């Protein structure tokens, strides 16, 4: 019984290598709100409605892609880290994985619910930005914590 939707184990390391710098860049972006000048370029957009340029669909637009790049890197890194097979992905690990995922979805939406009720205005926009990434973040944290606990439990038994 092996999960077909998981990636090979080697992607986990690659995932971390992408995820860690992307997280640091992401935090810098949130704190500083900067955009690198040289990252302004022409890209293809399904749809765009920037304030000055007006609405455009299925056309080339000129825009700054700092956020796009960091967000993409973060998502790719997080997906690889989250959904690469463990070295020994057996039924017990699979169970831990699924229960961590369930846990992450619960926690994520409970936090979102709290934010919905108690956060208003522009700050809520900020919440929505975080919320794009929190399911993956919570899942990765929870799953790896459980794996760590297991390894620790095994270490002191014969």
């Amino acid at each position, binding site marked *: *019984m092996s999960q077909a939707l998981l990636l090979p184990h080697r992607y986990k390391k690659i995932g971390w290598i992408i995820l860690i710098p992307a997280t640091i860049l992401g935090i810098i972006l949130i704190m500083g709100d900067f955009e690198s000048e040289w990252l302004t370029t022409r890209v293809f957009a399904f749809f765009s409605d920037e304030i000055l340029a007006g609405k455009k669909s299925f056309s080339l637009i000129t825009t700054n892609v700092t956020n796009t790049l960091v967000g993409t890197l973060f998502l790719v890194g997080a997906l690889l880290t989250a959904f690469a097979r*463990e070295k*020994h992905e*057996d*039924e*017990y*690990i699979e*169970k831990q994985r699924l229960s961590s995922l369930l846990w992450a979805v619960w926690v994520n939406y409970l936090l979102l619910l709290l934010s919905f009720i108690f956060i208003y205005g522009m700050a809520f926009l900020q919440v929505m930005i975080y919320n794009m990434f929190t399911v993956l973040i919570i899942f990765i944290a929870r799953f790896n914590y459980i794996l760590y606990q*297991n*390894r620790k*439990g*095994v270490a002191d*038994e*014969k």
Partner: protein
Amino acid sequence: MKNNIRVERAIKNLTQEELANMVSVSRQTINAMEANKYVPSTVLALKIARVFNKPVEEIFLLEPGD
């Protein structure tokens, strides 16, 4: 459900690691079963019974709450 994997393992003089390799799971899985934190799949239960050369019911036992 409880089990006597630990006892059977001692009789056969196997470490968790060795048993884990014989039924191709991780050592954590054996450890979790011995600690009654994990109920194995039927496939794994049958594999473990085969290692110890006993019927499944002699290794895995139902408890009143099951």
